């Protein structure tokens, strides 16, 4: 079932086409990886999907509703959530306050989730620490916890493992995989780390210069000549 779809989505910055006529759709409960060289338009694409940016043209559909012009918080309430490339949390608030804020958008009773999320991410002992006191990896986990707190159906993750040591990286990947299984989430992940991509993705979309270069299963992408040329060149797979 298609849960999320873009049609001909474009966004320009000072004449540069960051995203150029992208039409993509995501099936529910699948993990899709979005890859491509720097400046390919991956983050811009996510920003368009989640409402941080407005497209210059094109439309966005979620469960067949046109959400192109909705502000971010309305999309979140419909079930679209995300994390950012650079940890985007409330550094001056405690861990539990950090999680509480997104929970509050869920109306009455949503707060019951607080303890469950804290234990799910192993924050029991850290609940009253300031978020700024957490390790980098924990901050990423916290951000994922925060995005889960809004009870999303689809989750956009922008480089969740960037700049994180291997031990913590695996922890994050375990969490992401369990999300798909346990929470029935649709996940779109932007990633540079090919190990990560080929470990968790069921489908890979390659972007280059704002356009889609290739789209397929990991195996298909691995064998795609065009992709090897622009992107995987020199990378041992």
């Amino acid at each position, binding site marked *: 079932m298609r849960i999320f779809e873009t049609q001909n989505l474009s966004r320009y910055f000072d004449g540069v086409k960051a995203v150029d006529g992208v039409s993509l759709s995501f099936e529910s409960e699948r993990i899709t990886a979005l890859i491509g060289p720097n400046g390919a338009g991956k983050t811009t694409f996510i920003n368009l999907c989640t409402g941080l940016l407005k497209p210059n043209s094109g439309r966005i559909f979620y469960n067949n509703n046109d959400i192109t012009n909705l*502000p971010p*918080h309305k999309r*979140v309430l419909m079930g679209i959530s995300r994390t950012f490339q650079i940890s985007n949390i409330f*550094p*001056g608030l405690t861990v539990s*306050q950090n999680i*509480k*804020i*997104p929970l509050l*958008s869920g109306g009455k009773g949503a707060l019951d989730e607080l303890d469950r999320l804290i234990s799910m991410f192993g924050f029991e002992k850290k609940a009253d620490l300031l978020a700024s006191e957490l390790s980098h990896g924990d901050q990423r986990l916290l951000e994922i916890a925060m995005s889960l707190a809004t009870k999303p159906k689809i989750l956009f993750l922008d480089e969740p493992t960037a700049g994180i040591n291997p031990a913590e990286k695996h922890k994050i990947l375990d969490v992401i995989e369990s999300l798909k299984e346990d929470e029935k989430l649709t996940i779109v992940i932007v990633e540079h780390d090919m190990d990560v991509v080929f470990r968790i993705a069921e489908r890979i979309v390659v972007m280059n210069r704002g356009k889609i270069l290739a789209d397929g299963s990991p195996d298909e992408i691995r064998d795609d000549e065009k992709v090897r040329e622009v992107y995987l060149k020199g990378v041992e797979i």
Partner: protein
Amino acid sequence: MMLVSLVVLSSLLIPLTGNKYALYLSTKIWILVLYAIAFNVLFGYSGLLSFGHALFFSGSAYTLAILVTRLNFPLALGFVCGIVISALFSIAVGVLSLRHREIHFAMVTLAFSMLFWGIVMKWRDVTGGEDGITGVPRGLPLFWFYYFSLAVVVLSSYFIYRFVKSDLGLILEGIRENETRVQFSGHSILKYRLYAMLVSGTFTGVSGALWALLDRTVTPTISHWTFSAVPVIVTLIGGPQNFLGPAVSTLIYVIVQDIITKYTLYWQFIFGVAILAVVLFFRGGVMGIVENYIDSLMKGGR
């Protein structure tokens, strides 16, 4: 909390000392304390620096004065109407200005408050122009008015405290910390900012109405931008992140100013130096110092 109750309890005794000036000055301090606390809802908790709070302050003071002296409204009704006007003003300004951030927000609020100042100066038949409105009745002798103000200020502060410590207040803090994340937590920034503006403006109005009653006079000085600067400075001296910071520093601000003006006509110079010292050496504000001190005591004790 114990400290607060102690201060409130001991301040109940001030009128009994019989020193009328102390009575007057402490009433004024209470009123300014509320002004600073109300201002800080917007600044300390939502991260919005308003440079136009004089609008809400004088909006309510002028409404009260006009209704009571010119239209013979009962005092209590005038008091309530003044506060309602401040609430309406804060919604109006909020709707028009909350899209803006930082210095632009400061400038928009400044512009609106100075527009109001222009109206006050120009609409002389109603506002008395530069002369303002005199002869506002107080309804109570100063002795009892002190208790009235104290009660109003303490109740208002308690309400504000509950507000900023509520879930709503948490979201406001979130907005201050990271706007984008609040949006992506499913909250409308504008809506919560408007709440903050409403609470802040309305209680600023409460303090303005008390002010009109205390001095029994309103003049355009209280709608000028320089009066908007008072809570900014006070809050900074006290430390915006602490609920009581602005209150404590209002106390210090008024008393220090009172002492300096007693000894020298060059009081501005000394005051200026004091402000520089705070900004350069005590950035956490007075409460920051107190907190550090308590921290070090506790660590030393372990």
